[in-house]
């Protein structure tokens, strides 16, 4: 990409001439955008703003801790939700759809329905429970022998226990519910029951929990925006003289703004970092009682904490919040500081 030296200097001369002859073109337009310079300035600002932050360790630490606490609450709830979901995901259970057939149905009709259903692709097997078997089972389990024996006729219907292929969990629940609805619509079936009510309830609770976490997160993100905004506004105010002098010697507003945006960036990143540490410590603290509790129900479960990807996500989100919060606070403020 090397250009002959004469050509280059000619181009430079052209640029300078253009910059000076304001009649044709205002000087500010003649300045090209220098990406390397831009990067170098940013790097300098990054370091400078961190130094400034550390220059007021107590005030900075307070702001950072407030941000960290505000972020660790939604973060902690997120981890909790993740664990609940993973428990239910591992809770592999065969579900059963019990079909109570109309009592006037003949045994042969019931049997043929049973065969028909067991040949379906989404059905693993069908267990046929005749009226007599049902009665025996009922007598054994309920202790109502006397009452049952006084009845003139067996009141129990034929029951088909349909075992679907799919294992029941939160993902397959909608499919199973659809299957149940389909079976319910069969003319022979009086009532179809999916024995996963606990799962349905859990699903409702989890979706409620998700919304709760979103709402809390939104509120706390706004709180962090306000905290960062306020801290940065105060930083600008304390450097008013500097802003004025910079304007006097020709600094653009975006140049003046940049160190403050970086300050917001640092507040966000450090706040996110401490929030991550809080969450890791908290999940470590609750891990052993939680694992004991869960082992009562299900072996081989390991409590999940923040993983590396989630930590990086947390840092990214908090950095964005920090930059955005300071941008909102600073843009107007710097424009409003006018030379007099």
């Amino acid at each position, binding site marked *: 990409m090397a250009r002959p030296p004469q050509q280059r200097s000619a181009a430079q001369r052209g640029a300078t001439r253009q910059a000076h002859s304001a009649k044709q073109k205002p000087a500010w337009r003649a300045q090209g955008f220098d990406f390397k310079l831009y990067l170098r300035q940013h790097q300098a600002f990054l370091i400078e703003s961190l130094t400034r932050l550390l220059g007021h360790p107590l005030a900075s630490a307070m702001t950072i801790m407030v941000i960290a606490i505000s972020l660790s609450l939604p973060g902690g709830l997120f981890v909790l939700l993740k664990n609940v979901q993973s428990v239910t995901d591992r809770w592999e259970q065969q579900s059963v759809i019990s079909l109570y057939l109309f009592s006037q149905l003949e045994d042969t009709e019931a049997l043929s329905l049973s065969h028909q259903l067991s040949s379906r692709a989404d059905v693993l097997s069908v267990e046929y429970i005749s009226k007599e078997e049902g009665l025996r089972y009922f007598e054994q389990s309920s202790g109502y022998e006397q009452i049952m024996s006084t009845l003139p006729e067996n009141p129990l219907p034929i029951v088909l226990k349909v075992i679907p292929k799919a294992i029941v969990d939160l993902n397959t629940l909608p499919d199973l519910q659809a299957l149940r609805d389909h079976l319910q619509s069969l003319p022979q079936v009086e009532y179809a029951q999916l024995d996963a009510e606990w799962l349905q309830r859990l699903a409702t609770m989890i979706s409620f929990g998700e919304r709760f976490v979103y709402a809390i997160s939104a509120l706390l993100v706004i709180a962090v925006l306000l905290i960062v905004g306020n801290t940065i506004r105060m930083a600008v105010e304390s450097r008013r003289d*500097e802003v004025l002098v910079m304007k*006097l010697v020709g600094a653009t507003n975006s140049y003046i703004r940049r160190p403050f945006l970086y300050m917001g960036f640092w507040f966000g990143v450090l706040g996110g970092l401490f929030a991550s540490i809080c969450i890791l410590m908290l999940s470590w603290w609750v891990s052993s009682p939680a694992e004991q509790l869960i082992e009562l129900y299900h072996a081989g479960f390991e409590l999940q904490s923040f993983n590396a990807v989630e930590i990086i996500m947390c840092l990214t989100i908090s950095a964005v919040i920090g930059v955005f919060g300071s941008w909102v606070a600073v843009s107007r403020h710097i424009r409003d500081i006018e030379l007099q």
Partner: protein
Amino acid sequence: MEIEFQRVGKKYESGHDALSQVSFHLRQGEMAFLTGHSGAGKSTLMKLIMMIERQTTGTILVDGVDLRTLGKHAIPYHRRRVGVVFQNHQLLFDRSVFHNVALPLQVSGADDGQTGKRVRAALDKVGLLGKEKLNPMALSGGEQQRIGIARAVVNKPQLLLADEPTGNLDPRLSAEIMNLFQEFNRVGVTVMVASHDLALVARMRHRVLTLNQGRMVNDGGFA
């Protein structure tokens, strides 16, 4: 740089006419003093050139460009071509002399090597080369004033504006500083200095613009 005022007026929001019907033409490479009683409008005139205030009537041409045609985004680039010494925008005491003088260069994105060279050259011109590492607080009033001048010239501006640069200095120092401006003028910089010190102005033998109640009452030389 060339400055032309065509019947310029400035009315502040308070309703006060700080300048009215001011016309003059300062040519490229010229040096002029601006005098007048307190409140005559000297600072206002310089603020108009810097686009710190905008005129309410008339036209200001800088190198033939009407300042009214420059938008907000052009103002910083316009200011980079002008060096200023204003009383109330003095030094920043949270950084060294070097970094005070370097500020205009940083703002316009000069690289570090060039910045060091230019800052030392500017400090050398005002005779403070040995003090670059000090905090300006540690310097005398006269020295601080000279740092302000170094900062104004470090960017090699085409126009130098100084508002009462010798405000609270003794006569010998004042004369020294005026000589500094004269030197910059000799290398082609257009210079305008507002001053109360009529005796000093008279000795310098340059063009003198006199304001009275916001009107230009005298435009002539002492030569």
